[in-house]
């Protein structure tokens, strides 16, 4: 498994990672870089995310749902609202959709459906997310179907 069996579709692909737990963000980055040859941008800063999307520097995003330090227009914003914001921004400025994977520790019955519907995200991963190949597979799927 891992990188050899999953030839990265595009070494040029960059994943936007928004995750408030530093260790979890570190894991995503290592998993995506090592098992998938992706590049990663890790940030909790909304203007920076928007700039990355606008410039076309990121092709896909992994968002956490509960974000502690992230603010937008003077108030806290969570991953669900952020997903909608980024999607809108991508559509407006790049003319094409930004595939989004929600990764969250909210794992009670009904959370998946509720969060997917509310965010407009394309796929959903329940934490703990720990298999690098699985994560890479999910991202590749999103890119392929985009």
């Amino acid at each position: 498994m891992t990188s050899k069996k999953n030839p990265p579709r595009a070494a040029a692909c960059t994943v936007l990672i928004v995750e408030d737990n530093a260790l979890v963000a570190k894991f995503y980055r290592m998993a995506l870089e090592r098992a998938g040859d992706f590049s990663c941008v890790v940030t909790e800063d909304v203007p920076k995310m928007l700039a990355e999307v606008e410039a076309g520097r990121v092709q896909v995003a992994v968002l956490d749902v509960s974000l502690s330090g992230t603010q937008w227009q003077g108030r806290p914003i969570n991953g669900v609202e952020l997903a909608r914001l980024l999607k809108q921004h991508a559509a407006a400025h790049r003319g094409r959709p930004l595939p989004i994977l929600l990764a969250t520790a909210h794992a009670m019955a009904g959370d998946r459906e509720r969060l997917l519907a509310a965010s407009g995200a394309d796929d959903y991963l329940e934490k703990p997310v720990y298999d690098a190949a699985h994560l890479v597979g999910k991202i590749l799927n999103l890119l392929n179907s985009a």
Partner: protein
Amino acid sequence: MESCYHLLAIIVRSPGAQQVPAPGIPGRSKDAWGGQEGLLLESFLQEMKRYLGFTEVDARHLRELGPRMEKYFPELAERFYAQIRQHPHAFRVIAGGEAEIARLKQTLQQWARGLFSGVYDERYAGDRSQIGYRHVRVGLEQKYVISAMGIVRSYFSNCLLLEFPASDERLRYAHSLGKMLDLDLNLMCESYMHATVQNLRALNEQLERANRELAEASRIKDEFLAHTSHELRTPLNSILGFSKLILDGLCKSREEEQELLRDVFSSAQHLLGIVNDILDITRIEANQMILHLEDVNPRQVLDSTLPLVAVQAASKGLELHDLSARRPLPSVRADEVRLRQVLLNLLSNAVKFTSRGSVTVRAGVTGTDGVAPSRRAFLRFEVEDTGIGIPLEKREEVFHNFVQVDNSQTRRYGGSGLGLAISRRLVEMMGGAIGLDSGSQGRGTLVWFTIPVVPEAQQESSAAARRPRATATDRR
């Protein structure tokens, strides 16, 4: 970041906030048939009269009968209660012995007189149904009232036999009197009906309230479960993720593996802390937390706890002041392990949520537990930081409500978010109180708690022998 403290706190619900009154017999007199019920009684009376065929003619007959019946009332009363004596079940509602029986005989005569008053209006109905209520309230079953009316009925027919030898005249009066007794009996029994309805209504309300409370409790449990699951998954993500990266051979060097293993280790420690907090709060909620109270030297507790946060404080560039070091402190009555846990919790919160400045500890004796003046002396501990502080309106919440004041803080800084709720319960179980204030410079947060001081007389001896003395079970 609006607030600086741990944010999820579990309810430690204050029990017995509202006591539900047992469904009872409705209160007496006016309110029994007040308001709308008054109208109901009025229409009940009309309906009963119509049903019984009770007319003005009957009223006139009774008015005529009155003077001739008067002389029989004392004997009626005698016989009435002589009969009742023979029914122990009925008789036991008479609590006042012979004196009460004597009084009841009088009231029964009074009642009998009323039968012949000739005016049977709404007021009459009201008075009569009140009599019914008196019986409901003393717990007399309806069947005894009904059969007692039989005693009245047969006694009066004998009286009529004596008074009216001519049968047609007698029948006319007997007929009217019979309707009258039926009317009275119905009015008395209507009270029973009414009381039953009220009881059912009260019972219903009680059930509804219980239902709401259950739903609320179950919602709280669900929230707790959801939150707990969330908190556990985050460190698990790092533990599983990093170890799998190593196992998959995705590390570039042995150094990198070492680094990831350290992350795994710290996440696992974090996880352990959360698990311990969950166990603590669960035990507290289930009343299974047992404290071992003994005479504790607070100096030792402070000295052994402060170093545990000193490293972290230093690494953040925070100053850590112990202003309690200057003066001698009296022994306190506490569970040493739990006292240390509370202190450590407050200290590590302060360090965790302060990015610049200092964390200061104070301790001193006061004559209050911090909430109300007391005859006992307390040792008051204070932990003050120069962080951003907690909004006024959230001060109470952080200690008890099972609400997420701002659970994003919990995630950012780790921890179960249960620390303050646990501390509150522990402090209360040790007989003290805990609270939050703004820091002395008007910024930051000051958390204080009090622990009872060992009485003066016992101070000496206790220092020598620090044996466990008592077990405080949860006082809830």
